[in-house]
């Protein structure tokens, strides 16, 4: 399931947008969720104050992370939870493997966790003879199709129901042509119930971890995290360091924001507070760094660690909606993914901060007020400085800098551009100019603004 980068965002998106009908549908489906978010937000008069409070709480977390980690660890131990620390994805995977191995468990059920996707845990365990089944319906569908999730909240939002029906026919033996969402969900419910009942090991992600009490909160709509966890002998939770919040009362702020921002629901159906293992059960928690402390040390980008993974920046992003999550070749796609990924591997993800119009819609909907579009712009500067920008972009920037360096040069170039558009449009409108892919350019104006201004100024006199 790992995605090794072979093509950049633009090339991958090109494949996605070939099917215009699908692009329009994908665009509409995500915009519909954005609209549901708006309706939910407008029902809370103090919405903007909640966002501000959430952002400030997360600023405090980032600035006191050391202390909160120690407090959280001490409380976890007091609650009877075994604590593990992992510096890298590899170390995280090794820890999970050793926990399962010690109990001779070779089958595990896993609820949605972007962190374990990022770590490529499933592949790691499968190579060592441990079978993992993703229990979130969308993630299950992606797993049987051997694809990573395309959206952090809606993992298979890019798939049509007929395609899912085909996958179920192949993997679960359903009737060919079955594509009704309710019927398909019932089939998955039955199949996965048997998985929950027979798996001794269960892994979940973490939405929030409370330093004050040592409990962690897992939010789902399907109930899959709880079905796995409460029927397991060994329960493992994997979390990035940034998931901490100081006190339990702060959950009031975050849980009011999370589901409304994500899907427009007032709260996820299940907000489970895990504190102590069940009698006879083992509970493990793995604290994972994997680049987070490095991001913490980047003043321009550390606020990206505030993210609560609601996906609202994806739903609103015109580039995401029209290019699909898989074009981002990173576990976390969309605007937030584009500011997290360069920290992990700047060279391989140098294209992602350019997958944006910098319109700022992402920052406007973010429930913790991350300045996403500003960070995208700053990453572009870092990437150019480090020499990772694509050649065409670097050349374009240099030409632009030369053009804009004096009014004389600008006027000359603008005049030349207009002349080309009117007289020899094919010079611009050809396959070498990416702006003309799937697009027609409007006719160029007959005169430039400065020509119009000069003429009108004279007339007025």
């Amino acid at each position: 399931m790992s995605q090794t980068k072979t093509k950049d965002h633009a090339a991958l998106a090109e494949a996605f947008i070939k099917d215009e009908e699908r692009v329009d549908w994908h665009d509409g489906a995500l915009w519909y969720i954005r609209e549901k978010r708006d309706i939910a937000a407008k029902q809370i008069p103090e919405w903007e104050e909640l966002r501000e409070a959430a952002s400030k709480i997360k600023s405090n977390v980032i600035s006191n992370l050391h202390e909160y980690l120690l407090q959280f660890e001490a409380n976890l131990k007091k609650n009877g939870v075994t604590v593990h620390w992992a510096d890298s994805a590899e170390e995280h995977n090794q820890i999970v493997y050793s926990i399962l191995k010690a109990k001779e468990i070779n089958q595990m059920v896993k609820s949605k966790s972007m962190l374990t996707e990022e770590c490529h845990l499933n592949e790691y365990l499968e190579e060592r003879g441990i079978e993992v089944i993703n229990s979130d319906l969308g993630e299950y569908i992606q797993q049987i199709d051997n694809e990573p999730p395309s959206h952090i909240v809606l993992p298979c939002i890019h798939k049509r129901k007929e395609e899912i029906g085909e996958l179920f026919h192949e993997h679960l033996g359903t009737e060919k042509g079955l594509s009704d969402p309710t019927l398909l969900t019932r089939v998955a419910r039955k199949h996965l119930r048997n998985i929950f009942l027979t798996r001794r090991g269960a892994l979940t992600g973490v939405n929030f971890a409370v330093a004050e009490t040592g409990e962690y909160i897992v939010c789902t709509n399907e109930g899959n995290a709880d079905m796995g966890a409460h029927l397991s002998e060994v329960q493992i939770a994997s979390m990035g360091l940034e998931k901490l919040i100081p006190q339990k009362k702060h959950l009031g702020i975050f849980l009011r924001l999370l589901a409304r921002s994500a899907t427009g629901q007032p709260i996820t159906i299940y907000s489970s507070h895990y504190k102590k293992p069940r009698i006879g059960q083992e509970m493990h928690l793995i604290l994972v760094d994997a680049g987070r402390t490095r991001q913490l040390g980047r003043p321009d980008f550390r606020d990206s660690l505030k993210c609560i993974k609601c996906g609202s920046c994806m739903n609103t992003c015109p580039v995401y909606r029209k290019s699909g999550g898989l074009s981002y070749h990173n576990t976390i796609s969309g605007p937030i993914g584009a500011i997290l990924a360069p920290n992990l591997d700047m060279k391989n993800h140098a294209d992602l901060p350019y997958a944006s119009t910098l319109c700022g819609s992402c920052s406007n909907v973010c429930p913790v007020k991350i300045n996403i579009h500003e960070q995208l712009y700053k990453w572009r500067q870092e990437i150019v400085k480090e020499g990772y920008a694509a050649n065409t972009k670097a050349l374009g920037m240099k030409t632009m800098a030369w053009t804009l360096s004096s009014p004389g040069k600008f006027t000359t170039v603008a005049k030349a551009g207009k002349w080309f558009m009117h007289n020899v449009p094919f010079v611009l409108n050809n396959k070498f100019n990416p702006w003309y892919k799937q697009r027609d350019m409007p006719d160029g104006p007959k005169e430039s603004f400065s020509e119009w201004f000069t003429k009108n100024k004279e007339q007025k006199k």
Partner: protein
Amino acid sequence: MNTREKILGAVLQNQPPTTTLPDITRFKGNSIDLVQKYMDVFKTIGGSSFLVDDIAAVKLSIAENFDATKRIVTTLPELGDRFELISAAADPHSYENIELAIIKAHFSVAENGAVWLTEEVMGQRIIPYICQHLAVIVNAENIVPSLHEAYERIGAGEYGFGAFIGGPSKTADIEQALVLGAHGPLTMTVFILK
């Protein structure tokens, strides 16, 4: 240096100067007409709620709406004459075939329709998830306006496991089509005791 020390060292070195926590005491929910508000919101999230006078009315409604020939479990002693009482000591897998679970919530939240349950009132952690249908009883005076009052009420309350549950399990993973009954209960009913 072990991993723990390495990570903590990097955090200490890279974290910015301390900022203060905001005062969140000003956040309060609207406490007008909580029962009606709760019922309205709960309906929008796919649940059914009934305002009832007493436990006898709950029994009557359950007899009317659920299949009594199937396995029905409860944690409420006052329902023990009709239904099987949940054993905290049983293997959780043994509840795999329950049709309906009837439990009592500590309180519910008007703004989002959720009920607050801890493992003591669940009987077992798995119960509200593994049942085909879930029924929860809550006293009318135990409806709080929003999550802020909810966490005030939970306070430092001791529990091994607790959860807000707001409606039947659901998914919209296939083409955004809403389907009630993903892995958890297919329906959720709340009885508000006057």
